[in-house]
């Protein structure tokens, strides 16, 4: 019996874990990102119509983060319960950008030891369920996975499947609320505050309130309200880093559940975007770019 690793024997749960990790970390990081230098020309905002104005802002923020080609990063995900107890997971992530068809993502877990080596591949498909595969080292198998339950939690984290794609501007009714300043330790951030109401059926939220940086065009904060209208969670993106003078990435993303006191923190290190134009700190040479043909199920196996 002990020859059969628990990772392999409890495959479906492990599948969910790794797969959601792939979705989660990538979607969060990309949604908490934007470009600043060489800004895109602003659309002719229709400020008199809160619905149109809100949607224009959301779509413009989405357009600002296009063109980073490929990305890799290392990171950790730490879960805290209400008493302060915590567990940590570590991962490597590779992303290949495909603007219209959806990105291709590979994530490989490095910690905890129980899921070390588990790797997931996801082809994002806008408007429909993603294609997803998972490699389980214990069983030496790559398996295709079915679509996820949108409102389910990821192994006790404060993130749900829905949070992954929740800020696709095309899936919400938007409304501009106000121009405001988000107060935090390092000062105040000027933001557009928008309300987003999901237009799809399988949702756990009645509405979201999204704060978008007015100059950097990045999502600073998202508040999630439950079906009864009570504030459920807040997602905060912090410690921003800019790449190639354009693309912003948060090095820390925190999701706080106000109703349970639990929270989950994602921290990212060694981020690189547009690898062909990024430098290896050890050799000083440019990194090899990721190519689309590397994002295959067979790549998951050692």
């Amino acid at each position, binding site marked *: 019996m002990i020859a059969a690793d628990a990772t392999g*024997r409890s495959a479906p749960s492990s599948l969910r874990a790794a797969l959601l990790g792939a979705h989660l970390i990538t979607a969060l990081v990309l949604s908490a990102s934007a470009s600043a230098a060489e800004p895109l020309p602003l659309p002719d905002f229709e400020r008199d119509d809160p619905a149109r104005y809100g949607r224009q802002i959301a779509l413009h923020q989405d357009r600002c983060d296009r063109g980073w080609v490929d990305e890799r990063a290392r990171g950790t995900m730490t879960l805290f319960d209400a008493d302060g107890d915590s567990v940590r997971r570590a991962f490597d992530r590779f992303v290949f950008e495909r603007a219209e068809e959806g990105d291709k993502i590979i994530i490989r877990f490095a910690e905890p030891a*129980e899921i070390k080596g588990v790797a997931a591949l996801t082809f994002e498909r806008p408007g429909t369920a993603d294609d997803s595969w998972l490699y389980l080292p214990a069983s030496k198998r790559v398996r295709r996975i079915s679509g996820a339950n949108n409102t389910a939690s990821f192994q006790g984290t404060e993130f749900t499947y829905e949070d992954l794609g929740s800020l696709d501007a095309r899936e919400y009714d938007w409304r501009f609320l106000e121009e405001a300043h988000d107060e935090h330790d390092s000062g105040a951030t000027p933001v557009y505050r928008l309300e987003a109401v999901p237009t799809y059926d399988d949702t756990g939220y009645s509405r979201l309130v999204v704060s978008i940086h007015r100059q950097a065009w990045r999502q600073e904060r998202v508040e999630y309200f439950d079906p009864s209208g009570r504030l459920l969670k807040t997602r905060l993106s912090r410690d921003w880093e800019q790449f190639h003078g354009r693309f912003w990435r948060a090095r820390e993303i925190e999701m706080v559940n106000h109703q349970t006191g639990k929270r989950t923190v994602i921290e990212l290190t060694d981020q690189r975007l547009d690898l062909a134009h990024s430098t290896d700190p050890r050799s000083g040479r440019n990194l090899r770019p990721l190519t689309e043909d590397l994002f295959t199920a067979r790549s998951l196996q050692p």
Partner: protein
Amino acid sequence: MSLSCRPGAPPRSSARAVGALLVLAVCLPSAATAASLDAFDPLANDEGRFRLLRGFVALEARNFTAHRDRGLANEGALLEAEVELSLRLNRRVRAYARPRILIDLARTDLWRIEPYEAYITIGLSQGDVRLGQMVESWAIADTYNPIDLLNRRDLGIDLLDPPRLGEVGVRYRRFLPANRVFGEPTLSLYLIPVFRRARWAPEGLRLAPVVPGGRFDEDGGFDPRGNDRLFVAVRVESTWSSAWADADVQALVAHGPDRTPGLTEDTDAVLRPAYHGLSSIGFGARVVPNADVAGSVLASLTLKLELAYRHHFAFEDAPVAPPEDHVAFVVGADRTLYDVFRERDELALTVEIAGELASSGSARRARPFGSDLIFRLAWRRNDFARQSVELRGVVDLEQDESLLEISYARQLRKLHRALKMVASFQVADVPRGGSSFLARLPDNTHVSIVLRRDF
């Protein structure tokens, strides 16, 4: 699909063809390719260094609760360790090893010290070549897979999850051009010239087959000789996309010694394993229906199918007749439910049916019963201790036979963050003297406690 290897073809000609292809592939001038995740990590800096990918040490205590005082080992203490090592020699060549040690501390005659895997992989421009001892799963379903033909099993450790044993040979893969329907088609050729036996438990242990008043002789069985030892296979796999479903599909043709031997009994009541030949052509698919077309209920399932035609043949001087030719199949589905008993928990359900289209029972050698219903219910609490409960089993509804296991697992975080405990209870409800393989074993109902440290 055009495959050159037909069932029943003499192995010598197949071997020549495959060997020629392999030599051609290796000799072709080619650029480096990165067929694995490790190979294309642009920040990886491990060239020329061994990397420990993962490993574990586990200690399992077993206590068999039935059929005691029959001269059999009623207790077991299995110490097992395994590591995965990787060595990247350059951008094209990577070595990999997975040595394993397993010793029954209560019975020192049960020990396994061997590499599960030890091979090198050479990247080619549109494929790769792997040489050495390898383990590969061709399975779609969870168990009793008629298309999973490559690796023999260690039948002396666990009845529900017999570990795969490495096979020594060569694998050549060719990555074929993809399109919108077939996502990443891959042609694989296998040449396994080294024959190895399935492993059994030593005589006197609970999992060793026995006959009344007789004994089991693992080493004295009948093996194939000469070219009969060769295993060759051609396999095509791909992703497949359509409006109503997406799938992983594969087809294969294989020829060589069958993975699972039969058992022969001589006049002295000595039971021995005996191998026979197998030519097989098979197909498998793992399908995820599209919610827009199939509906949300069907789209929540993952559907599985394995189908294989199996032509068995006897080797020269074989002491036992091979099973009759037949079609073997497994069909099933997986589904995961959320927030079932508690907030954020998960319940994964698996149901499969395995069987054969054959006129006699000789075909069902690889399975325990006549018509098997395989199920698994895996509940995960999703808390910090990663608690889980799993019930799984194989049931023959017609014959009222079953093999069931329930287990509870959790991390022992207060002792060590990577220490895990698994407690399980396995019960085999099988009439003694019946026709199934399990009927040759004593009642191996047992309880088990495992402590496992992953690293």
